[in-house]
């Protein structure tokens, strides 16, 4: 194992709001990538990554049939769509943001990348 890779090297992501909570869906490109993310991308890790935005809690849901992990970030939107003063009141930027997380490079990274 050498160095790190971007989460975006092995998955894509999309996010959005529900009230003052947001969810971030992380979808692996391959089964190998999903198996790796399932081990590595824990609730704690995601909570630490988004700490500057002060989520109250993070809960992970697994969707193995579509190689996806869905993270619900509670009370992360500073009031939600109706009350938030942020330009991103819907949490749409959280998806692109999580893909910039650096994770330890797995040995079989080449089979996890987006298939051509």
């Amino acid at each position: 194992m050498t160095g790190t890779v971007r989460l975006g090297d092995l998955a894509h992501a999309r996010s959005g709001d529900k009230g003052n909570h947001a969810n971030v869906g992380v979808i692996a490109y391959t089964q190998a990538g999903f198996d790796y993310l399932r081990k590595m991308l824990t609730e704690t890790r995601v909570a630490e990554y988004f700490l500057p935005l002060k989520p109250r809690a993070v809960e992970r849901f697994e969707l193995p049939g579509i190689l996806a992990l869905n993270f619900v970030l509670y009370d992360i939107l500073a009031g939600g769509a109706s009350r938030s003063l942020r330009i991103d009141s819907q949490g749409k930027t959280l998806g692109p943001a999580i893909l910039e997380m650096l994770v330890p490079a797995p040995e079989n990274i080449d089979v996890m990348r987006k298939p051509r």
Partner: protein
Amino acid sequence: MAYHDGYTASGTLVLSGRNAERNARQAAETIFARLQQAGYCYTRTNVECVGAGDSLPGIWPRSSDVWEVLLRVSVHDSSREAVERFASELAPLVTAGPPGVTGYANARPRPRPVLAYWPTTISRESVSPVTIVKPAREWLT
């Protein structure tokens, strides 16, 4: 349940040139200093430099060589008058603020009522259903 939760307004200006972000933050401080002098303070305020990483503050990497930012300043308060006063404080920065301020052609920001939501359940016995139909403008007076 939806409920009326005061007023909000957001205004934007573009600041350009060297130190665009620093100038934008200084401009925002000036706005709130002037409001404070006039006796106004707000329940919540927010200052964002869009283009410098503020769509996710603390997450996106910061860059020092940003040559333009969209300064977005927002307030929330129960007083409509206070929010209106805030809205009138952006324009002076165009002529009396730092050079290179632009993007102000959309007139002053307009205060809007905040309709907040309280997701909850209420037992059936506590509620007597009533139906009222009237135009939207009459709900907020």
